């Protein structure tokens, strides 16, 4: 039986339960997702754009799906401390894939910004869900169709016209089930005309020896003149897999930053699909991966310039150590009649050990003459001369390597448009390189933060 079939069977068996727990707007998408999955197969390793990653293998284990919405206890206090210090956020928790309304630090109810679980939004803002949910997610991707088939809830973030969400909206996703589990996570962000919002999503796994799979679909709609910053930080475990698809639609004059950071994980595949549909839009697509042990991180991006006079800047950096594997495949498409587009794509990688592997595939496809586009990809080692220079100053080889790796990722961290998060990322990457981020096998980041308190 294919990996997909087991979940299709599950859907067939529990269709009524699923639909009973979920909002109408989500249920309305299921027939099409179901149809899309007929005869579909998950891409295997070696398929175009899956040179390094086998989705079939990632979905193959018999993960449970929490159909009956069984509540798990989450050590939220512990995870809450992983929160970015000095950053005052509105906080929303998902425990596995169940929304935890009691633990959220919500917006002031008078605030026009809408942040609600889909189930809540079904009562309060059903028209928003109906209008936007599923409009970007591409069901021809089996992993996206599967998420759509089985998801029961998610988070809606809607910023009305001209409104700025003052506080950063933080979504904390926690895995802590006692059995292998697949979480179906879903986020919908709509920034209406001239609206501004920053969202930080963090993935944590609290139990290190149970296998989990995070199936995530994020849709980001930035209307005319809107600004959206979306930071997606993964700090999980060697037994956690993640298959994430992020879809972005940009209208005229919008400015979107998407930053995907993998600090700790098991196997991860992140897909980014960006459609730039209006003139003078600006896109920043950033990524940073630190992988060691047997971690596997694959980022795939597709950025389509469908309108003239837009700018995009894409930069992904990887530090791959031990036996870890990194992969990057990025494509920029400039459609016909899109003059004055400026697009840059960069992928820089360090293989810090002789057994680390990196696959990279940069692509440009351009159908308009008057554009400025470039791409660059490089795989290298740490600079031996710099290492020796540092050692002659008394810096140990290990510390010198940390400093050089930290230096290597610093420009991606500098691209973060949120000061407190930038500081936090410098701190986290330092901890990560020195090997102290994973000390605690319950929640490494919580342990990490308690150390922080002592330092203070």
């Amino acid at each position: 039986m294919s990996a997909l079939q087991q979940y299709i069977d599950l859907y067939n068996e529990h269709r009524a339960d699923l639909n009973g727990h979920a909002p109408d707007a989500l249920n309305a998408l299921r027939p099409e997702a179901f149809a899309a999955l007929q005869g579909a197969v998950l891409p295997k390793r070696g398929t175009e754009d899956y040179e390094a990653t086998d989705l079939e293998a990632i979905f193959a284990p018999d993960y449970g799906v929490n159909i009956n919405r069984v509540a798990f206890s989450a050590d939220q206090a512990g995870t809450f401390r992983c929160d970015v210090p000095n950053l005052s956020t509105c906080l929303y928790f998902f425990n596995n894939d169940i929304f935890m309304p009691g633990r959220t630090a919500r917006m002031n109810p008078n605030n026009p910004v809408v942040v609600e679980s889909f189930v809540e939004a079904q009562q309060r803002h059903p028209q928003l869900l109906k209008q936007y949910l599923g409009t970007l997610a591409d069901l021809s991707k089996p992993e996206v169709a599967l998420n759509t088939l089985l998801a029961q809830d998610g988070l809606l973030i809607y910023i009305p016209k001209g409104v700025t969400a003052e506080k950063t909206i933080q979504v904390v996703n926690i895995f802590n089930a006692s059995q292998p589990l697949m979480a179906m996570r879903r986020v919908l962000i709509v920034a209406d005309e001239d609206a501004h919002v920053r969202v930080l999503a963090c993935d944590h796994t609290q139990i290190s020896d149970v296998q989990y799979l995070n199936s995530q679909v994020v849709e980001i709609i930035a209307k005319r003149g809107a600004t959206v910053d979306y930071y997606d930080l993964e700090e999980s475990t060697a037994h956690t897999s993640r298959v994430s698809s992020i879809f972005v639609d940009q209208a005229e004059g919008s400015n979107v930053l998407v930053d995907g950071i993998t600090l700790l994980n098991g196997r991860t595949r992140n897909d980014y699909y960006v459609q730039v549909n209006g003139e003078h839009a600006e896109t920043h697509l950033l990524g940073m991966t630190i992988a060691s042990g047997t971690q596997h991180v694959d980022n795939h991006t597709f950025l389509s310039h469908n309108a003239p006079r837009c700018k995009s800047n894409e930069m992904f950096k990887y530090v791959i150590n031990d036996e870890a594997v990194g992969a990057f495949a990025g494509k920029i498409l400039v459609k016909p009649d899109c003059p004055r587009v400026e697009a840059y794509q960069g992928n820089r990688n360090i293989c810090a050990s002789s057994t680390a592997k990196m696959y990279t595939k940069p692509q440009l496809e351009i159908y308009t003459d008057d554009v400025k586009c470039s791409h660059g990809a490089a795989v290298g080692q740490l600079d031996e001369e710099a290492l020796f220079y540092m050692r002659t100053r008394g810096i140990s080889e290990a510390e010198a390597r940390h400093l050089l790796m930290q230096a290597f990722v610093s420009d991606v961290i500098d691209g973060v448009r949120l000061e407190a998060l930038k500081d936090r990322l410098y701190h986290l990457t330092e901890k990560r390189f020195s090997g102290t981020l994973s000390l605690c096998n319950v929640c490494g980041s919580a342990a990490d933060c308690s150390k922080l308190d002592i330092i203070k």
Partner: protein
Amino acid sequence: MLEIKDLRASVEGKEILKGINLTVNAGEVHAIMGPNGSGKSTLSAVLTGNPAFTVTGGSVVFNGKDLLALSPEDRAHEGLFLSFQYPVEIPGVSMVNFMRAAINEKRKYFGEEPLSAADFLKLMREKRSIVQLDNKLASRAVNEGFSGGEKKRNEIFQMAMLEPKLSILDETDSGLDIDALRIVAHGVNTLKTANNASIVITHYQRLLDYIKPDFVHVLYKGRIVMSAGPELALELEEKGYDWIKEMHPEL
């Protein structure tokens, strides 16, 4: 302080140092001169433990310890310092983080607590003034975008921070204009005490006008072929190296 006996070293299978003998005592300044390719920079690389070079024979004792058995970082902790002929640029690593790591690793080696942020910055300020290194340079990435003179001043600044017992200055005068040369030499002379020593590697007499050596050695084809007082440098300046080469047709 330093005793080098019959030191032999090779790179990629080719023997460069063919039996070096040299003794340096505290309070002394030794100049090593010699034509291109004689092995001057190889000697400094071998003494500091550059992994690109292989020691094939001989011994080096530094303050009673077997220097060749120590890692490059431990050689630094024990008080050895090399001012590089070509200081390395390290983008993304700030001078402050670089120096803080260096100072604190040395303190750790001697079982001391790390320096507080305030004390560290005070030390940076104090030592910077010795070589007139601008605060702006100190806050930038290590050597990145520094001019040739700034890089050499930065080397002497690091030397001031680390307070080595033995400093090797490898072609510190190359790429320096006369003003920068004065500043660098002033820095080196300021740091000189009765308890430390220096080895100055140079092609030219020029630097030795500012940093007065007690001994001058000529390195030729991997061996020290002549040692004398400071007057030897003047003689070399006048006559070149040919007469030395003629004295050693066997090499």
